[in-house]
């Protein structure tokens, strides 16, 4: 009986301790995540951001230039030019299974949805230095200006090929030594881009 009371009291004490630390830092953690997401959205929409910008400055640019709308349960981010009128592009979260765990990212496309503006990965659990290289600029940078079209038959939007063997404009370099991560990215990103295009074209039609 004494053990039960003792365990109860000590659990109460440590649970309160952990909860208060969590409560004290919750806002800060949430803010870090928001800043990170906003930075990525601005990046894939090709809205320039200075590296040494504080959270407030970033948030101000974000609220001025980006509008969030809901399209069939997914958030679509609309990027505006400095005048606040001209649409620069659309961004949407993408995701799928990687080799070790889920990969989440953000992709931006041009206003007429014919090419990719930018791609960034937000979260992944691939091996650092191998599959983890999907976040490196040389890899994500390849997707800039990638021509887009909905998938017809077995024609994918893009292919990942070993370095130096690319022939067409939609042949991009794969990551050497990370075959499984590369093919996982190729599979889910093609599907997601196709999905994105169909949704986006649907919503562009609606607004017209």
């Amino acid at each position, binding site marked *: 009986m004494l*053990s039960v009371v003792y365990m109860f009291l000590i659990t109460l004490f440590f649970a309160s301790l952990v909860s208060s630390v969590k409560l004290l830092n919750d806002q800060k953690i949430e803010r870090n995540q928001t800043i990170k997401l906003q930075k990525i959205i601005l990046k894939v929409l090709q809205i320039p951001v200075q590296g040494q910008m504080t959270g407030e400055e970033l948030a101000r640019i974000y609220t001025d230039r980006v509008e969030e709308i809901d399209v069939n349960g997914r958030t679509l981010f609309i990027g505006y030019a400095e005048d606040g009128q001209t649409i620069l592009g659309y961004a949407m979260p993408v995701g799928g299974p990687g080799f070790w765990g889920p990969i989440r990212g953000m992709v931006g496309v041009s206003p007429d949805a014919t090419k990719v503006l930018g791609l960034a990965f937000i979260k992944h659990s691939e091996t650092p230095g191998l599959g983890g290289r999907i976040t490196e600029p040389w890899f994500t940078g390849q997707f800039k200006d990638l021509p887009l079209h909905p998938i017809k038959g077995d024609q994918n939007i893009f292919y990942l090929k070993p370095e130096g063997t690319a022939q067409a404009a939609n042949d991009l370099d794969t990551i050497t*030594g990370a075959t499984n991560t590369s093919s996982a990215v190729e599979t889910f990103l093609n599907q997601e881009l196709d999905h994105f295009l169909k949704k986006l074209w649907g919503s562009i039609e609606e607004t017209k």
Partner: protein
Amino acid sequence: MQPKKQIFLTGLWKDNPVLRQILGICSTLAVTNLMINTLVMDAGLIFTVCMSSLTVSLLRNVTPVRIRMMVQTLIIASYVIIVDIMIKAYLPDISEALGPYVALIITNCIIMGRCEAFARHNPPLSSFFDGLGMSLGYSLVLIAIAFVREPLGFGTLLGFRVLPEGFVHWTVMIMAPGAFFTLGIMVWILEHFRLQSGEEKG
């Protein structure tokens, strides 16, 4: 009662948790491919081991023996969650890189090992120094392994390039087996000298 300096040095070197007790191997393999991850892991572990040992020792006379392991797990888990929250709040980039490993400090055998083997029978200050010695001993070994793995695997150290551009990266050093080889060779060399110096005779 051993003097605190002795307790500290035992953990740091003579009974080094990784090299001599072969404990904490999981995290040793997981985080040592980048020096920065290693340093954050070390800091987290030092805090957790010292605080857990101290707390377990403070409660050693009132904790019923039958439920002591539950209590120890609770104490360790609480400190680890606090470390995790702190890293998320103040070092968001490193939190990304370490992923689930911070939370996995809970399962590091060194912490519970020290609580059970030492803190449970010894006064708080001695327990604290025991934890400090053991966790610093762990940290030293991890840093040494990262010092081999990061340059060979990435050509960098703490993100700065230390080997020439043309250097062919050793992929195996990035993967967990690289740490097995490095650690194995380290244990081999150190044991060789230990035996030669006659420290283990008798």
